[in-house]
């Protein structure tokens, strides 16, 4: 029904107005920025989830070197206690060389070798409920000298907090972009009406209701929304892909960010969510224009 009315009312207003070109450009830019913001939001959310999931599935036992204590023997005792704990799938005792490698970024290569360093036992959880860490902690304290259990709870909490912050920030940016777009479309709709004041007067003269006059502009705002939104989407996706491909492989946040956006399992989901941007921009464009015109015509 609505489309019949749009088609019937189409072309009553001249379509070649500078306002439409300027509006199209603005919406394209807004959609481009929205793509970047949504890309950032998705990376933040997915990376946080991945980190939390990774951290949550692991725990660590740290055994400090103590004078007069055989650290290898203490490591074996700690590993045996961990193995006997339900919910722990596997354990890995990191050797002294691995412990030294952890300090290389701060101390330099080879400097830490030979120092009395704490040793780590990595515990991989089976993911079927949380192991009884309290019991393990008590057993470690009773029978392993210098042992500490780290369940990564603090890391999880900090990651979750950081992730929530980034998601909120990206959502605020998206909201502001939507708000700015609405304001621009509203301004453009008024400008179109002023530029076509004579057409509006003739339409009012022949008995056109405000709804008919507002709908007569729908097609133009619809086309602008689709074309400009689509352009912004394509440019945004290309930019995000380029940022990923230009970043150094393996280390930079951008390359792992690109994987969180365009990696196999995320690709379709990302595209689906990104498609909402031109759709929302188009709806925002058409509805804002319609309500602005209706408001102006009602006075």
């Amino acid at each position: 029904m609505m489309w019949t009315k749009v088609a019937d009312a189409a072309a009553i207003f001249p379509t070649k107005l500078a306002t439409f070109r300027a509006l199209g450009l603005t919406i394209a830019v807004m959609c481009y920025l929205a793509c970047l913001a949504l890309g950032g939001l998705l990376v933040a959310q997915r990376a946080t989830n991945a980190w939390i999931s990774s951290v949550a599935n692991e725990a660590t036992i740290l055994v400090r070197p103590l004078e007069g204590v055989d650290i290898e023997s203490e490591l074996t005792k700690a590993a045996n206690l961990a193995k006997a704990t339900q919910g722990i799938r596997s354990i890995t005792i990191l050797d002294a060389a691995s412990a030294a490698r952890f300090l290389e970024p701060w101390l330099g290569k080879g400097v830490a070798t030979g120092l009395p360093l704490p040793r780590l036992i990595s515990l991989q959880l089976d993911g079927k409920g949380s192991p009884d860490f309290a019991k393990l902690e008590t057993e470690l304290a009773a029978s392993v000298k210098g042992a500490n259990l780290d369940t990564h709870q603090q890391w999880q909490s900090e990651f979750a907090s950081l992730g929530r912050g980034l998601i909120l920030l990206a959502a605020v940016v998206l909201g502001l972009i939507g708000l700015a777009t609405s304001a621009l479309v509203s301004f453009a709709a008024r400008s179109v009406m002023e530029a076509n004041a004579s057409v509006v007067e003739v339409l009012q003269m022949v008995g056109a209701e405000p709804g008919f006059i507002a709908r007569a502009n729908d097609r133009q705002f619809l086309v602008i929304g689709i074309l400009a939104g689509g352009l912004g989407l394509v440019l945004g996706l290309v930019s995000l892909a380029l940022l990923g491909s230009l970043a150094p492989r393996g280390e930079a946040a951008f390359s792992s960010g690109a994987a969180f956006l365009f990696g196999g399992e995320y690709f379709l989901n990302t595209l689906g969510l990104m498609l909402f941007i031109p759709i929302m921009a188009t709806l925002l464009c058409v509805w804002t224009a319609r309500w602005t015109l209706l408001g102006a015509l009602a006075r």
Partner: protein
Amino acid sequence: MKLENISLRYGTGPEILSNLNFSLAQGDLRFLTGKSGAGKSTLLRLLFLMLKPASGKAQLFDQDVSTLSVKEVALFRRRLGVVFQDFRLLPHLSIFDNVALPLRAAGVKREAYAGDVNDLLDWVGLKGRSGELPPMLSGGEMQRVAIARAVVSKPQLILADEPTGNVDSSMARRLMHLFQELNRLGATVLIATHDEQLMAGARNQILRLEDHTLVAK
């Protein structure tokens, strides 16, 4: 149509129309005349619900128009037909689409009005030119398109503001003939003009605007 003690001013300016009283019965054909700037166009705009009076009571089709909503005003205007001196055609629409505009605005489908519009174009002597754009027409032709647009929805009241102002005398007679024909078909017609020749040929009552108010001639 009935106006009682109508006064009108723009903003805080002086009164353009003052204590104005008159009525039109169904089937009347009247001329509204007066000096340039006397308020003829203002009165027509008031009758066409484009302006609101500062005081007084205006009735159209036995209804007080001062309380009409925006939507009701639009519906009311569908019972009116208006013709302006400057035609007010949409230059980017074809003659056919200009004439059909009131029907499109009323939600009538193209297939339902196409025959009527073509018949009207035939009646005003523009058969076969429905696809042309207004800038391709002469003044008289554009005015005939404007008249066709004014009557396409079969209005009960036709208001014409200096309809012969931009055409030569032979075209003016032809346009007047169209108005008389519409009047014979039952429409009430009010023509604002200062063309004495146009009024001389008519025996109908002439309304004259003098000193911001109406006097019957």
